[in-house]
């Protein structure tokens, strides 16, 4: 069934769309960066940016040819898997990105592994015992969580766990992670913060989706077969709620790669988001573009994955 041609057609179609989207984004990003005042040379020289100095540096960096030309060059390079070189320090963008991306993905990974199960089970439980005290508790909790600014959560947790209690390191990076325990400690706080931010939405959506399916006749049918509440929800409701849930999860997770600037700032965690902020600050086009691509790819792959799950979880769509 998985291997049915239509499924592959769907996959192909999604990929095609994704590709086009990427192109659009990269152009959008390019024009956006063109709007930014000043260029690499000026920014690099900062206070020392006297006209002749700027001119000299521009020439030295090969920035004298028109931007669009450079951009096209970059695109064609990308086509051959070449991300180009950073303007500011002439290091291969791939190298610059490599480590950062790993960090980001590691963080995102840990958060995902922790959040998704927790959020889903909470959402399902809330839906299962809808209207019960635990439903109320969960709902209220999620609301309050999404209502507090991220950086408050972050700063507070540093203050409490690192400064006052001195349980956890205030920095996640640079502290040497030799053992698993050390690693857990190192990542604890950014993970906590991000989990707060991310899971609330997932819980809400899961709850909503499951409740919707609980209302359907086939779940009532299950009840009339004498099925327990657990069975009704897990066996009958959940599989049919998978599509929307997957979608919500994907959207929440897509935030983890690019949206975590604040966490990266507060915990001084060298991830891609901060990299892109730097890149923007220094007008480092190849770097900006590459970062944007990464965000976009992660977003698209997540949403596409979600769609795939939705399709596979539904035999009607499957063929």
């Amino acid at each position: 069934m998985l291997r049915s041609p239509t499924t592959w057609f769907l996959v192909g179609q999604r990929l095609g769309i994704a590709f086009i989207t990427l192109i659009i984004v990269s152009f959008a990003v390019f024009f956006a960066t063109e709007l930014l005042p000043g260029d690499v040379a000026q920014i690099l020289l900062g206070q020392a940016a006297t006209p002749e100095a700027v001119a000299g540096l521009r020439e030295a960096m090969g920035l004298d040819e028109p931007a669009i030309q450079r951009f096209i060059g970059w695109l064609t390079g990308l086509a051959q898997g070449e991300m180009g070189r950073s303007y500011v320090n002439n290091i291969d963008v791939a190298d610059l990105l490599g480590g950062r991306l790993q960090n980001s993905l590691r963080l995102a990974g840990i958060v995902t592994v922790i959040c998704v199960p927790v959020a889903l089970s909470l959402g399902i439980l809330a839906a299962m015992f809808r209207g019960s005290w635990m439903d109320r508790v969960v709902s209220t909790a999620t609301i309050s969580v999404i209502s507090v600014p991220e950086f408050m959560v972050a700063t507070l947790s540093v203050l409490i766990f690192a400064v006052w209690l001195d349980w956890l390191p205030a920095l996640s990076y640079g502290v040497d992670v030799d053992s698993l325990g050390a690693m857990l400690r190192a990542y604890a706080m950014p993970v906590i913060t991000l989990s707060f931010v991310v899971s609330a939405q997932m819980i809400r959506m899961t709850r909503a989706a499951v409740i919707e399916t609980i209302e359907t006749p086939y779940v009532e049918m299950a009840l009339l077969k004498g099925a327990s509440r657990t069975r009704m929800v897990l066996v009958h409701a959940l599989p049919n709620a998978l599509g929307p849930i997957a979608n919500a999860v994907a959207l929440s997770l897509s935030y983890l790669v690019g949206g975590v600037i604040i966490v990266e700032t507060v915990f001084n965690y060298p991830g891609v988001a901060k990299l892109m902020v730097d890149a923007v600050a220094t007008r480092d086009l190849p770097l900006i573009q590459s970062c944007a691509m990464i965000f976009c790819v992660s977003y698209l792959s997540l949403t596409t994955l979600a769609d795939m799950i939705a399709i596979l979880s539904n035999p009607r769509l499957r063929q």
Partner: protein
Amino acid sequence: MMTDTPLVSVRDLRIGAITDSGRKVEIIRGVDFDIVPGEILALIGESGSGKTTIALSLMGHTRRGCAIEGGTIRVGKHDVTGMTEKQRARLRGTEVSYVPQSAAAAFNPSKRIMDQVVETTRIHDLMPRARAEAHARDLFRALALPDPDTIGERYPHQVSGGQLQRLSAAMALIASPELVIFDEPTTALDVTTQIEVLRAFRRVMQESGMAGVYVSHDLAVVAQIADRIIVLKGGETQEQGTTEQILNNPRHPYTKELLAAFDPVPHVPLAGRDDSADTPVLEVRDLCAGYGAVKDGEPAAKVLDSIEFRLMRGRNLGVIGESGSGKSTLARAVAGILPAYRGSVLFDGQTLAPDLAQRSKEDLRRAQIVFQLADTALNPAHSIANILARPLRFYKGLHGAACEREVIRLLDLVHLPATLRHRLPSELSGGQKQRVNLARALAADPELILCDEITSALDTVVAAAILDLLKELQGELGLSYMFISHDLSTVEAICDDVLVMYKGKVVEAMPATRMSQDATHPYSRLLISSVPQLDTGWLAGLEQDPELLAAFSER
């Protein structure tokens, strides 16, 4: 048989519900009945009569917001009313089981049929999977399902409605319970399909000797399967008796009313003037329409295949056929909602553009369409007044007081109180909605009304009333109807001529009055013969050529 101790006894059953406003209402008001083993009891009544509520209460289940408030329900040795939810769960599926109204909705779309059929045995672990499946296959055979050995491997959407309905019966019978509840199990089916399903049910019930509760609004269907009938209205028993007695000498006026509504009142054509001379109000020539991506002028899925007919002014054309025959598509094609890709629609002699976007306001005004489901046909966000006022404003530019007066007149025309105009559709009953639905069409004062199954969703009595209304209006306004329905008696009741459609083709055209006699095309005959009759022996005595069945009702 009536002597031995009842399997089910219900005493003074009272079920209450809480409305959104928190008002408590009693929807079942003290119902008593018994069911002896092997007996099939029918609960007859219109929507809102509480028949389904009672049936479900036998399993100790009430829908959201409802609760059993009084009386006792005993099933076998169990006092259902006294049980905890856990105990009830043990009862469900094993001793009492349920065959849903719409199997299509009651099957979990994402699970294989077999898993769902044998689920009961799994929940109560009654037997090993293998045995359960074997048993299921036997049931499939007993229910005359095609390729019984593999059908379980399919997903619900991969089998036809009739098959699903029978599969749901298998699902109910798998644990061989003592009592099976059938909740309008054939209402959603075509007549030809219905026959098969009814037959299957009858057979298994007789063989297994299980007792049953059969919930339906259709006396004719019930007549074929039930031993006893309870007639319900507004949550109260009106009459209770053997099927024979209820059908042949009903005592309660309401029962009489029901029976009356069932007998088709033959349609008397307006003063039989010879009209072959003047131009037909609607003429359709070689009409072809379909859905999907259009490739070189032809859509991917062709539905209508060169339809031809003429409808004379002041006369009514009935279009009958089963689901998928393309009758609704025909209406849409004529109305221009689905532009035909070939052929022409002539209104009063002049050709209409296939796409309604190209038609003149006037053309649109003169031919109105009325849809089957009044609740989706009326915008829930607008008051009745708005709904009726819009066409008045749109076609006639009426405003303010004049418009208001006209709205009231229209409501009066369809026998609705003027005060209704301030309500929202959600606050109206099904019949009222359908009347408003009709009134909106009348607002355009059209010459032709395309009625797409407008009585199908209604209770027989209400439907009958609507038909009378249609006739009356025709008298007053000299309308012509194109009347689309799957129900022959309805068509008989209002139409002069009938088209029988099958797979997008008109297989036969004839005068409505002579339908039962003159029909020659095998499909027409099959269709006509499949309409249940108010006669307990009808189904038993019915001969139908199985090849015909196989050929025409694909399942």
